[in-house]
Each structure stands twice: as structure tokens, then as C-alpha cells.
């Protein structure tokens, strides 16, 4: 009996009062909650992964030959790295029109928009406006799903290739791309395209899943009962990071 009451006394003194000391969990390092801090450091590690991918792209691109002629006379060849705007110039429904980077511009705008609706959801969470949180989360899910669909189209087009194809070194004409062969340039060009945009797309997909979960939790009133919408904020951090990565992928894969 006496042991129970002792335990009771310890738990009363240790758990029921808010902790205030420096070393007993009473203070928040960097004045940020544990969850947000962990999200920041996870994103830092994820940034390393993406940076490694893009650095690899830089190394492999510089290791390959450069196209020397004029942009107008450019033809696909496995001997040099392709000019990105010659590869990514198609738009759904506008077959045969040369629209350099037109579709990727649309995808970029969709992702920027989804970032805006995400901040709006976080802002609504600060005001405990459940309806607004739901509305903006739904918009973000919609834009995220649209981006993924665009990427699916982009991949399909990249894999299928153009009607003309490219005359390969072995004398055959090859259309589209796979991991071992592609019509656009050196083998590694298509490999890097699949790995980098694929890894980014996986992140967008995970983000959409998290957003759907957050929407359900908001609807059920989970965050309201908890007294804060911090979970929406943490998912928001992740979502903006995915947008941030796209900004870099866009520059290093499509523009330069």
C-alpha cells in the first residue's frame, strides 16, 4: 500500500505540474515545438538527398559532350547532352506544336499555387477557423493531385517519344526512353530524369496522402480537441519543401 501511495506522490509532483526547468523538458530549444524541430531536421536531411541527386546530374552532364551547333539545327544524338527545351516541348492536346517548356511552366504554377493554399490552411488553423482549414486543405490536395497527373502525362510522353525517333549508333531508329536506351541523348540523361523527377513525385504523393489524412482529422475535430492545428503546420513545412525542391529541379533540369 505504501509503495502505491509513493508512486502516486511522485507522479503527482512530476507529471501534473508543467515542467519549467532547463534540463527536465521544460524549455523548447529554438522556441519551436519538438515536432516542428524534428520536421525541420528531417527536411534538412531530405535536402541533402535531393542535393546529391542534382550534384550527380551536374557531374554527369559535365562529363558528357556539349552540343556545339546553333539551337535551330539541334538534333537528338547520343554523342552529346540534349538541350532541355528541345526535349520538353510538348503540351497535351497540342500535338506537333513546338512549345518549349510550356507544360513544365504550367506544372510549376500549379505547385506554387498549392503552396499558397497550404499557407492559407496554416493561417486558418491559427485562427481556429475549421471551415477555412478544410477549404484550403482541399484546394491543396486538388493542386497536388493535378501536379501528379501532369507528371504522369510528362512521363508517358517521355517514355513514348516522338514519331521521328532518333537514329542510334547501331543503325536502328529508337523512340522514347527507358533506363537502358533513349532517343534524346546519353543513356544517363533519361536515367537522371526518371530518378530525379520520380523521387520528387514520390514526395508529392506522400504529401497528398498526409494532406488527405489532415483533412479527415480536421473534419473529425481532432485538432480542435487538441487545442492547436500544429499538425497542419508541420505538413505545411513538408509541402513547401517539396515546392522548394521543384524550384531547384526546374532550374537545373529544365532551364540551364
Amino acid at each position: 500500500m505504501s509503495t502505491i501511495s509513493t508512486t502516486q506522490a511522485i507522479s503527482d509532483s512530476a507529471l501534473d505540474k508543467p515542467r519549467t526547468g532547463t534540463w527536465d523538458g521544460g524549455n523548447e530549444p529554438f522556441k519551436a515545438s519538438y515536432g516542428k524541430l524534428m520536421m525541420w531536421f528531417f527536411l534538412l536531411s531530405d535536402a541533402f538527398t535531393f542535393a546529391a541527386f542534382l550534384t550527380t546530374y551536374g557531374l554527369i552532364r559535365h562529363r558528357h559532350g556539349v552540343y556545339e551547333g546553333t539551337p535551330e539545327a539541334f538534333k537528338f544524338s547520343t554523342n552529346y547532352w540534349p538541350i532541355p527545351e528541345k526535349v520538353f516541348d510538348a503540351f497535351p492536346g497540342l500535338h506537333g506544336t513546338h512549345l518549349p517548356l510550356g507544360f513544365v511552366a504550367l506544372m510549376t504554377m500549379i505547385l506554387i499555387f498549392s503552396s499558397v493554399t497550404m499557407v492559407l490552411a496554416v493561417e486558418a488553423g491559427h485562427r481556429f477557423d475549421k471551415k477555412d482549414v478544410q477549404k484550403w486543405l482541399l484546394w491543396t490536395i486538388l493542386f497536388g493531385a493535378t501536379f501528379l497527373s501532369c507528371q504522369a502525362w510528362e512521363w508517358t510522353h517521355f517514355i513514348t517519344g516522338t514519331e521521328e525517333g532518333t537514329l542510334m549508333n547501331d543503325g536502328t531508329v529508337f523512340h522514347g526512353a527507358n533506363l537502358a536506351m533513349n532517343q534524346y541523348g546519353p543513356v544517363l540523361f533519361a536515367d537522371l530524369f526518371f530518378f530525379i523527377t520520380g523521387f520528387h513525385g514520390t514526395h508529392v504523393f506522400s504529401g497528398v496522402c498526409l494532406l488527405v489524412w489532415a483533412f479527415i482529422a480536421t473534419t473529425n475535430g481532432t485538432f480542435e480537441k487538441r487545442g492547436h492545428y500544429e499538425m497542419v503546420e508541420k505538413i505545411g513545412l513538408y509541402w513547401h519543401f517539396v515546392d522548394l525542391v521543384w524550384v531547384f529541379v526546374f532550374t537545373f533540369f529544365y532551364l540551364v
Partner: protein
Amino acid sequence: MAQHATHDTVPTGEIPKPNTAWIWKTFWIISAITALEFVIAYLMSAGTFRNSIFIILTIFKAFFIVAEFMHLKHETKGLIWSILIPMALLIWLLVALITEGSYIGEAVQNLIN
């Protein structure tokens, strides 16, 4: 500013008015930079100069996303530096390995010839 409050208090009834002007301002800045990138991609011929402009504009965009949307600008100095200093090391990695790539290319070329 209300949107920068670290701790919220559960309101008793009235929902405060949204404060979204700063979000839209950031959106317009990022969109304008993206539009500028496309104008440059169409009008300027490719080269090191154009690439440097692209990289500088990308860093501008990254700044607005991280500072405003991800709120890092309004966190403590300690958190800002713990994120930025490790990222700065990546610049070295990028420069070193791209240079290395050119050398590998040259070596392979010499081997073929």
C-alpha cells in the same frame, strides 16, 4: 503580427478575420520571378551568363519560400543557422563535383583519341 504568433489561444466564439495580404504578396513575387525566368529562357541565348542569372533567380525564389512560407525568417537565430550552415556546405560539393565531371569528360575523350 498575428500570423507570426508562436502560441495560439483557443478563441471563445468569434473567428478572427483572415490576415492573408503577406501570403499573396509572396505569391506575386515568386510568380513574377518565374515569369522572368521564362522571358530570359526565350529571349537570351544559352551560356554561362544566362545560367548564372537562372541560379541567382532560383536562390531568390528559394529565399521567399523558406523565409515566408516556411516561416524560417521568424524563427530564432539558432534555428536559422542550424539549417543554413549545413546547406552552405552543399555549395562546395556542387562546385567540386561539377569540376570533377569536366575532368572525367576530358580524360574519357583523351582515352578515345
